[in-house]
């Protein structure tokens, strides 16, 4: 009688609401109590404790996996109340790794065979939630019986469980499928909707296996008036029509009938969705669907508006005219307060973008972006960026406008897409020569604005702007102002790596100006004092601006600052020596010339798979372990001098010297790796051999010096000229500038790996679909046989002979169920047959066509 004083679940809940201890301490106290009570032998006490535990697990996240065995004990009770609590706990907490899962089989079997339909339903629900392969295999006979039960309540639930059983144990298909198909002809609408629901799931996994049942589905589609059933059928047909296009023709008519007749919006929406996704070739159906979409779009109900837009976006790829028809509704939806609606409208608008209207649409969108919340604003920005940059900017004709749009985007307060804008600024600079002046103009505007420096989202854009200004400085109107902007004190706010880019750009500008100064000096006889003043001014400004950075904390910044200052130091002397006009041997002159050469080489875009294009020279083994080379070549090679870069007192920037020396080294050394590094490697390998992986493909020692690779610009020689479309009217339009494109063969790699993963997932479903197909084949054969002879035994023999004739993968041992066993209905024995079922393709009977 100890459960008289036990707290029930209601008491627990009440106590929880009134308690003042604090949630976690209350729960831990309750848990202690439960642990004590659950060990009691009295089933009532146990079950109440279990009930409380399930409540705590579901609502408060307490782990209840330790009570698995107790749940089993509770379930074995004969009282319905206890059974219910036990099953609820089991369905909630059991999973594939629960150790006591095996023990539940018998209990489930008992309950599945029970007279009380509610006990049966408890067991069925348990099986449907926790069913494993073993459980499914052991209990499929019981499920089979229940599928034919006289009580519709039970049949309905058995249909629901069939899905899980099929999923976990595909062999059950052979047994249960026929009953399932029979249930398609039932008059009870709930059972029908359950069956159709199961077929909907099966069809999503593998449409081809359900294709033979298309005639039955078609009949129901035409006759039924139950919306749930019809919705599921439509989903089935949508999947079937994608594998069997001829089905679409037949089905289009009844679907249109339903669309016109019904009042239920859910059914209309489903019809519309089916038509635009799978039947998009049938013009009449599509027109009707679009008319219905329009009705949705003008409704006040936000749900319908959203669904209308959603359907429109499914239709958009193939039927752009539908979107264009509803343009006003779409634009209006952009300012709706529902975020879903706004997003759909945005995507639709982007689908409508073409060359002609891209500037107009972008203008509208930029206005919206300024007014919207940060999330939507960034969505707008990213979608505009991605659409415009698709396929190497194929949609843009006027790059000047686009570049200024990019600059505008940077000024939008909520903009957080700095990296994408940065990428595009640099990309356009490299690909589109004619856009460079505008780029430099826009960058200049961005750089001189001190307000932008504070916004950390915009730093990537500023780094791109400075790079562009430095790289294409020849288009700058006023390099002096540019330099001022680049060295302004507020650049302290930038992170070090961006400051390094700024300094390097300053350097490029300086070289450019000096070069032009020196070349002006050489050509003209006398130098005007104003030019001299200005160049001196420039140099001074740079020196003053950069000098504090030579003591910066970041090494990159410090190094570049010192480089610039060193160069200035050298150049200043020569600027001062105005008299030596004809002296072309002035060091600064030469060096500046060299620098300008270095900077004048154009940087171009590199294709994604450029590396693959470098062909491996003959006789070069890339896979060998080169440790053995040590012994062979050790005598011949001398260690490389480590001081290839000479340090002089004067800080000289002798990049040209360095380069020459590199080339000398390359020519003198053979293509074998230097001795020192390979010997170290061999030693290390000897000591730690077992930790080394098998030899890698691209052993860096085996490659030649970097000069063996062709410079990136050689690849840029595959310039594809963008031909002017002759159909376009060339009124006062500028011709589209040349955009450098490279053949990006990278996509093929991605698709092959996708194909591989698809294959792997297919093999899992293969066994299920094979079984369904064979079951359907047997059904058809069985029906014919029964008509002729009415003897089910012959069918069995048929099956056996057909299977023996086709020996297939015998690794899988399959159980065989004879159709004759159904008539016996008694104890079924398991037999293991050596022969697997046939795996040939089922011929889809041409019943509909």
């Amino acid at each position, binding site marked *: 009688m100890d459960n008289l004083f036990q707290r029930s679940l209601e008491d627990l*809940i009440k106590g929880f609401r009134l308690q003042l201890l604090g949630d976690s301490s209350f729960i831990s106290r309750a848990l202690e109590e439960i642990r004590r009570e659950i060990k009691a032998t009295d089933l009532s006490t146990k079950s109440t404790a279990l009930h409380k535990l399930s409540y705590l697990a579901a*609502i408060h996240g307490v*782990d209840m996996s330790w009570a698995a065995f107790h749940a089993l004990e509770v379930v074995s009770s004969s009282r319905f109340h206890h059974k219910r609590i036990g099953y609820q706990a089991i369905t909630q907490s059991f999973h594939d790794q629960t150790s006591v899962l095996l023990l539940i089989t018998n209990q489930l079997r008992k309950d599945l065979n029970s007279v009380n339909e509610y006990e049966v339903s408890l067991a069925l629900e348990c099986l449907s939630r926790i069913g494993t392969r073993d459980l499914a295999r052991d209990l499929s006979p019981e499920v089979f019986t229940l599928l034919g039960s006289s009580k519709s309540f039970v049949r309905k639930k058995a249909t629901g469980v069939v899905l899980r059983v099929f999923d976990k144990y595909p062999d059950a298909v052979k047994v249960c499928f026929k009953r399932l198909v029979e249930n398609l002809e039932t008059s009870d609408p709930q059972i029908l*909707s359950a069956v159709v629901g199961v077929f909907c799931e099966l069809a999503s996994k593998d449409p081809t296996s359900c294709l033979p049942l298309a005639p039955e589905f078609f009949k129901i589609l035409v006759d039924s008036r139950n919306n*749930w059933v019809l919705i599921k059928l439509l989903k089935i047909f949508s999947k079937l029509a994608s594998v069997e296009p001829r089905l679409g023709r037949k089905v289009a008519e009844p679907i249109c009938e339903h669309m016109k007749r019904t009042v239920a919006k859910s059914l209309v929406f489903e019809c519309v969705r089916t038509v635009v996704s799978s039947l998009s070739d049938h013009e009449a159906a599509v027109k009707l669907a679009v008319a219905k979409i329009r009705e949705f779009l003008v409704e006040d109900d936000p749900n319908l508006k959203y669904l209308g837009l959603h359907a429109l976006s499914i239709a958009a790829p193939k039927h752009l005219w539908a979107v264009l028809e509803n343009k006003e509704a779409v634009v209006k939806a952009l300012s709706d307060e529902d975020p879903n609606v706004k997003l759909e409208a945005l995507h639709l608008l982007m689908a409508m973008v073409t060359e002609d209207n891209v500037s107009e649409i972008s203008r509208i969108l930029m206005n919206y972006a300024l007014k919207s919340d940060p999330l939507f604003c960034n969505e707008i920005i990213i979608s505009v960026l991605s659409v415009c940059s698709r396929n190497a900017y194929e949609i843009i004709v006027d790059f000047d406008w686009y570049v200024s749009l990019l600059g505008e985007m940077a000024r939008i307060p909520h903009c957080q897409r700095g990296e994408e804008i940065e990428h595009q600024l640099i990309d356009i600079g490299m690909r589109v020569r004619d856009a460079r002046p505008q780029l430099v103009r826009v960058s200049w505007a961005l750089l001189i604005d001190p307000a932008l420096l504070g916004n950390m989202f915009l730093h990537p854009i500023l780094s791109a702007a400075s790079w562009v200004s430095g790289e294409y400085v020849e288009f700058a109107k006023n390099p002096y102002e540019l330099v001022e902007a680049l060295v302004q004190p507020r650049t302290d706010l930038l992170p070090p790596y961006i400051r390094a880019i700024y300094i390097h750009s300053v350097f490029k500008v300086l070289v450019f100006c000096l070069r032009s100064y020196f070349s002006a000096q050489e050509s003209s006889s006398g130098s005007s004092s104003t030019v001299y003043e200005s160049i001196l001014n420039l140099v001074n400004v740079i020196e003053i601006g950069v000098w504090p950075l030579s003591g910066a904390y970041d090494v990159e910044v410090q190094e570049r600052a010192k480089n610039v200052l060193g160069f200035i130091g050298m150049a200043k002397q020569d600027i001062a020596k105005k008299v030596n006009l004809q002296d072309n041997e002035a060091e600064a002159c030469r060096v500046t010339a060299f620098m300008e050469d270095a900077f004048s080489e154009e940087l171009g875009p590199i294709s994604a798979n450029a590396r693959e294009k470098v062909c491996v020279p003959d006789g070069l083994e890339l896979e060998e372990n080169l440790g053995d080379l040590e012994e062979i070549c050790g005598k011949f090679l001398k260690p490389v001098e480590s001081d290839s870069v000479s340090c002089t007192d004067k800080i000289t920037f002798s990049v040209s010297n360095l380069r020459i020396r590199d080339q000398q080294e390359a020519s003198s050394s053979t293509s074998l790796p230097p001795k020192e590094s390979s010997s170290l490697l061999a030693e290390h390998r000897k000591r730690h051999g077992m930790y080394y992986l098998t030899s890698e493909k691209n052993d860096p020692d085996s490659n030649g010096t970097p000069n063996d690779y062709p410079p990136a610009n050689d690849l840029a020689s595959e310039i594809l000229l963008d031909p002017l479309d002759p159909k376009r009217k060339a009124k006062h339009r500028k011709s589209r500038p040349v955009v450098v494109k490279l053949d990006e063969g990278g996509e093929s790699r991605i698709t092959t790996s996708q194909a591989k993963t698809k294959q792997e997932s297919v093999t899992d479903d293969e066994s299920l679909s094979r079984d369904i197909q064979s079951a359907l084949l047997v059904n058809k054969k069985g029906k014919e046989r029964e008509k002729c002879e009415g003897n089910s035994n012959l069918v069995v023999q048929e099956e056996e002979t057909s299977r023996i004739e086709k020996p297939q993968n015998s690794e899988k041992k399959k159980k065989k169920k004879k159709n004759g066993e159904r008539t016996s209905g008694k104890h079924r024995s398991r037999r293991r047959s050596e022969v697997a079922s046939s795996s040939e393709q089922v011929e889809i009977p041409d019943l509909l066509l």
Partner: protein
Amino acid sequence: MIKAVMMMNTQGKPRLAKFYDFLPVEKQQELIRGVFSVLSSRPENVSNFLEIDSLFGPDSRLVYKHYATLYFVLVFDGSENELAMLDLIQVLVETLDKCFSNVCELDIVFNYSKMHTVLDEIVFGGQVLETRSDEIMKAVEEISKLEAASNSISLVPKSVSGWRGGR
């Protein structure tokens, strides 16, 4: 397939949470919290649908309805129709109304097991089985009768009745 059914109040406390794919309890609580944070930021008069791929995996949609202080949430995938799911919430609420007459949040709090009974009749292993509230009510009443019958025996244990009645 329905992936989950949740009922939570406007402060985020779950009143009922049923997940049709197995998940450990911490993950369940995490999902409940995630859904609540998304729902609480939705304005009024907007659509009742949400895409929640980030929480429940690809192809997951959520439909919710706000009744007084409760959010009713249904998570499902592509094989269910959105408006039909909205109807289903309606069916559920109507049935609860019939069960408890003018149901309010407290009824749901204190009748945890009855809630589950009702829900189990509607959604079975992730599939929708029954959509007529009178049928559901019939089944629920039967089950409650059975439960009451099996419970009443426990008050008088066999040993006592045997001693008294001498059967």
